[in-house]
């Protein structure tokens, strides 16, 4: 049986007397962009919503931070850091970033010919944003601009 996070968290906050977190609930079917190339020829862009940043970059703040970090894929794994409003889920990523920001995994898949290539920078933002308007009007357009600049074929989005 899978964990019902929305129900569990809603009840937990209710027990504490807090206002409920409002998850995005889609009311219609999503748009669709057909894949143009086989995976083995595709350039993949990576976005993680885990609040990853590289040493030398600014950390995220926890009040609806809508900024993006561009992490060069050659960044040594030990220089990747995380800040996220739900820090309790960062125990493993802070030891091995690849369990939430799979840069080395994708590089290995590129080497094996499974994917064509990985964009030279991975993107990260901080999930858990309360404002859906900020996600729509700030985070998503910023991610789109960077993915278009990197001329990717497909985007892999990894959530916390």
């Amino acid at each position, binding site marked *: 049986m899978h964990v019902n996070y929305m129900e569990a968290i809603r009840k937990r906050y209710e027990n504490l007397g807090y206002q409920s977190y409002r998850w995005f609930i889609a009311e219609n079917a999503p748009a669709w962009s*057909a894949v143009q190339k086989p995976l083995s020829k595709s350039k993949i862009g990576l976005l993680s919503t885990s609040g990853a940043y590289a040493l*030398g970059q600014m950390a995220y703040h926890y009040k609806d931070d809508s900024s993006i970090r561009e992490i060069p894929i050659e960044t040594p794994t030990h220089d990747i850091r995380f*800040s996220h409003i739900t820090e309790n889920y960062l125990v493993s990523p802070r030891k091995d970033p690849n369990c*939430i920001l799979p840069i080395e995994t994708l590089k290995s898949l590129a080497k094996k010919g499974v994917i064509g290539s990985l964009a030279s920078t991975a993107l990260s933002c901080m999930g858990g944003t309360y404002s859906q308007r900020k996600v729509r009007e700030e985070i998503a357009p910023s991610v789109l601009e960077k993915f278009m600049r990197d001329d990717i074929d497909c985007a892999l*989005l*990894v*959530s916390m």
Partner: protein
Amino acid sequence: MCLIARYLEAHGIPTLCLGSALDILEAGKPPRAAFVDYPLGHSAGKPFDLADQEDIVYRALTGFEDIKAPGVAITMLKNTWGDGLWRAEASSTEGSDTRQPRDTTPQFQFAEDRVAAMAKEKIGTLKVN
């Protein structure tokens, strides 16, 4: 994440969401999605388990070739975490709020990160001037 995926897709970029909260993925109806039944924080595999990480990411990526219509089905990955003890904690409706205070101060993982970021910012400012 689902909102961003839907936005990118509407602007011509095929997307695939990999996550480990099935109900949140279902509610967000992204165009393509893969679910792995792991504790949150491990959507791309177990720490230091390269085989598991590669297997999950590879199987998720195959969705770009196998999923032919939006939001029809979420690819359910077969990887198993091992013990299910984490589920009780994740499902609990009791206990305190695990979120950090909503504050606009950057929350660096280590104190040295702040020093490194400030030094870089200072160099950037000097260049501009």
